[in-house]
C-alpha cells in the first residue's frame, strides 16, 4: 500500500530447494562489522538459522609471498611477523627454520632454549588474544579486558628482551637476535604465577559462567572426521579430538627435552576449542618453567655456521646481541628449505627457494587461519545467528593471517 517492498521491507530471496522452496535472508556480515574482522561473510538465514555461509576473504591481502621475493631474505623476518602479530615469534621461527635448512645453518644451544621460552610465550600471547576477542564476541567485556591485560604484561616482557612490544623481530636464522637482560629473567616467573592464577579466574568468569557455558556448549559442532577432512589445525582440530601437534609429531627445537602434553578435547564444539586454548596456556607455562631452569645464561646466540659470516669485531659481542651486517652480505644458495612450527592458532609452514642472490626466488606460506576457514564455515551451518561470533572466536580466525 504505497510502500514498495524494495524500499521498506526485508529483502528476502526465494530459493527453490527444499519442499515448497524457502525464504531466506541474505546478510552481508562484514567487513565493517564490529565482530567480523577484515572479512565478509555472505550469511543466508532461514529465520534465525544459518543455512548457508560463504566467506569473502582478501580484504587485507598484502601480497606477503610476492614481497618476500622482492627484498633481502633477512628483511623477510620483520615482514612475515606481521602475518600474525600476536604470534610473532612462532611465525618468524618457521621462516628462520626454512632459511636455516636452506643455508645449512645450525642453531646454538642457548638460542634453542630461548626460542622455546619465547615460542611458548608467543603461543600464550596468541591464545590470550583469541580468548579475549572470543570473550568480547560473546559479550563479556571483562574477559576481553583480562585477557588483554594479561597479554600486556607479556608484551612488556617482550619489550624488555627484544625492545619491542608487538614486533620483536627476534628470531634470526641460526639463533636469536638479542640476549634477554637480567630484568627479563627476574620478572618472568612472577608473570607466570600471576597468569596461572588469573587464568583460573577467567575460566570461572567466562567459561564456567552459566551464560557463557550455554553460549559455547554444543555450538559449532565439528566431528573428528570433518575436522580431519577439512584440514583444520591448531585448537580447531584438537578440539575435535584429533591428537596432532607439530611440536610433537614433526619435532623441531628442543621440545622433546621437556615434559608436556598435547591438549585434546573430544567435544568438537566451541567449548572444546576454548578449553584446548586454556589447557595449552597451562602446558606452555609448564614448558617455560622447565626451560627457564635449564636455559644457559651465557654462550653464543647463533650457531657456528652463521657465526662465520659475522665480522670479527661484531663476533666478540655475540653473547649479547647479533648485528645483522653479516646477514646482509650473505647470498642465498640454489637450494630450498622448509620450516614448520606450531603457533597458537595452528601450524605455520614456510618453504623458501634460494636464487643465488640476496633475494629469495620464492617463498611459500601456509597459515593456520586460512586452513581453518573451511572448517569454520562448515561448523557455522545449522547454527543460529547469535552463534556466529561464538564459533568465529572459538577458531581464533584471524583474517590478516589468512589473507597473507
Amino acid at each position, binding site marked *: 500500500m504505497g510502500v514498495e517492498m524494495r*524500499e*521498506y521491507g*526485508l*529483502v528476502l530471496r526465494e530459493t527453490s530447494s527444499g519442499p515448497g522452496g524457502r525464504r531466506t*535472508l541474505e*546478510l*552481508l*556480515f562484514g567487513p565493517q*562489522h*564490529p*565482530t567480523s574482522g577484515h572479512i565478509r561473510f555472505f550469511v543466508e538465514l532461514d529465520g*534465525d538459522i544459518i543455512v548457508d555461509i560463504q566467506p569473502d576473504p582478501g580484504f587485507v591481502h598484502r601480497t606477503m609471498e610476492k614481497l618476500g621475493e622482492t627484498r633481502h631474505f633477512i628483511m623477510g623476518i620483520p615482514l612475515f611477523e606481521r602475518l600474525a602479530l600476536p604470534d610473532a615469534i612462532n611465525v618468524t621461527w618457521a621462516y628462520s627454520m626454512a632459511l636455516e635448512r636452506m643455508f645449512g645453518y645450525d642453531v646454538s644451544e642457548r638460542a634453542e632454549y630461548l626460542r622455546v621460552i619465547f615460542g611458548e610465550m608467543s603461543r600464550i600471547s596468541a591464545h590470550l588474544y583469541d580468548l579475549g576477542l572470543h*570473550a568480547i*564476541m*560473546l*559479550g*563479556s*567485556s*571483562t*574477559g576481553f*579486558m*583480562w585477557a588483554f*591485560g594479561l597479554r600486556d604484561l607479556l608484551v612488556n616482557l617482550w619489550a624488555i628482551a627484544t625492545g619491542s612490544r608487538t614486533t620483536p623481530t627476534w628470531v634470526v636464522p641460526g639463533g636469536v637476535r638479542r640476549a634477554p637482560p637480567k630484568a627479563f629473567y627476574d620478572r618472568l616467573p612472577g608473570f607466570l604465577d600471576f597468569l596461572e592464577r588469573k587464568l583460573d579466574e577467567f575460566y570461572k*568468569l*567466562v567459561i564456567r*559462567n552459566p*551464560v*557463557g557455558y*550455554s*553460549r559455547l556448549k554444543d555450538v559449532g559442532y565439528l566431528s573428528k572426521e570433518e575436522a580431519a577432512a577439512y584440514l583444520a589445525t591448531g585448537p580447531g582440530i584438537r578440539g575435535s579430538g584429533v591428537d596432532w601437534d607439530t611440536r610433537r609429531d614433526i619435532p623441531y627445537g628442543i621440545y622433546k627435552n621437556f615434559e608436556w602434553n598435547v591438549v585434546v578435547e573430544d567435544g568438537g564444539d566451541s567449548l572444546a576449542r576454548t578449553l584446548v586454548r586454556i589447557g595449552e596456556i597451562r602446558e606452555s607455562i609448564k614448558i617455560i618453567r622447565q626451560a627457564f631452569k635449564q636455559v644457559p645464561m651465557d654462550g653464543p646466540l647463533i650457531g657456528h655456521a652463521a657465526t662465520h659470516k659475522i665480522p670479527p669485531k661484531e663476533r666478540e659481542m655475540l653473547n649479547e646481541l647479533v648485528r645483522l651486517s653479516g646477514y646482509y652480505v650473505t647470498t642465498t644458495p640454489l637450494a630450498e628449505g622448509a620450516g614448520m612450527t606450531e603457533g597458537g592458532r595452528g601450524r605455520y609452514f614456510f618453504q623458501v627457494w634460494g636464487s643465488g642472490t640476496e633475494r629469495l626466488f620464492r617463498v611459500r606460506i601456509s597459515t593456520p587461519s586460512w586452513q581453518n576457514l573451511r572448517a569454520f564455515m562448515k561448523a557455522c551451518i545449522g547454527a*543460529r*545467528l*547469535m*552463534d*556466529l*561470533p*561464538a564459533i568465529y572466536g572459538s577458531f581464533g580466525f584471524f583474517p590478516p593471517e589468512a589473507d597473507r
Partner: protein
Amino acid sequence: MLPSWLLSVRLWDFLFVVIVSGIILLTIIWAERKIAARVQMRVGPYHISPKLGGYLQLIADALRFLTQEVIIPQDANRWLFVTAPPLFITLAYLPAFLVPLSPHFALLTGPALQYGLVMSLAVLLYLSIVVVAMGWAVNNRFAYIGAARESLLTTAYEIPIILALASMFLTFKTIDPVGIVERQTYVVGAIYNPIAFIVYIIGVAIATSRFPFEIADYEGDVATGPYSDFSSIFLALTFGGGIYVGLFSYSLLGALVFLGGWAPITPGPWPVDILGNLAAAVWVMVKTFILMVFFVFLRSVMPVLRLDHTLAFSWRGLLLLSLAAAAVSLAEFFLL
C-alpha cells in the same frame, strides 16, 4: 513571605525529579564505567576531571553527541527516524512524573495518582514498540533483525513484569502507590513476596537490555540492532542515554513496590513540611540508585545469552516463577 506558587508541591516535585534524575543518570553511567573498570584491571574514565575520578566525562560525551553531525541514512524513513528517539526518551522518562516520591510529593493528585503505578507500567511497556519502529525506520537488515528480536523479547518479559507487579497489588490489596508504601513501613515488598521481586529484576533486565539479555542490540552479530544507524543526538536519546532513563523508571517502580519507597527504616511518620518530603524523596532515589547499580554491575560479570535460550528460559522458567509469585500473593491476600 514567599509567593504561593513557589511553595507549590508540583513545582518542587517537577524540579526535584528533573534535577535528581539527571544527577542519577550521570552518576549511574559513570558508576557503570568505574565498576567495570575496577573489575577489569583498568582505570576507567579519567582524563576529563581527574580529580573527580572522571565524573565529568559524561558531560563531555553528551556535548560531543550534541555537536555531532546529524546523519539520516538515505534509505531510512525520515519521519520515524527523527521522531522515534525523542518519543523513546519521553516514554522512558514519563513514569518518573506519574508516581509520588512521598505522600504529598507528586505531580498528580487525587484519583489520578492512585493509578500512577499502573500508568507508569503501561507507558514503559510501550518502549518496545518504539524500538521496533526505530528498527523499521532505519531500514537495514541488522536493524530489522534487532527489531524482530525486540518484539520476540517483549513476549518474554512483558507478562512476567505485569504478573510480578499485579501480585504485589494483590499482596497490598491496593494499586495506590501511597497506600502500597504505607503497607511497607515495617516489611518491604521484596520480603512479602521475594519470588515476585526476582521475577521483576529479571524482567527489567530483559526489558532494558541489561546484560546478560543485551540481545536485540547485541554487538556481536547485529551490531547494536535497532540503534545501528543512529548517531549524534539520536544515539544519546536512545542507546546512549534513553535506555538508562528507562532503567531509572523501572528501578523507581521497583523501589516503590519492592523496596519500601520512602518508608523509613525506623517506624514513625516523616515530618510533613517541605524538608521532610524532600528527605523522603531522596530516600526513594537512594533505593532507586541501589537497584540501578545492581543492573549496571551485571555488565561486568555476564556475557550475552542466546535469543532462543532467553525465550525458553522466559517461557519455561520466568513465566512459571511469576505464576508462583501470583500464587504466593493470593495466599497473602487471604491470610494477611
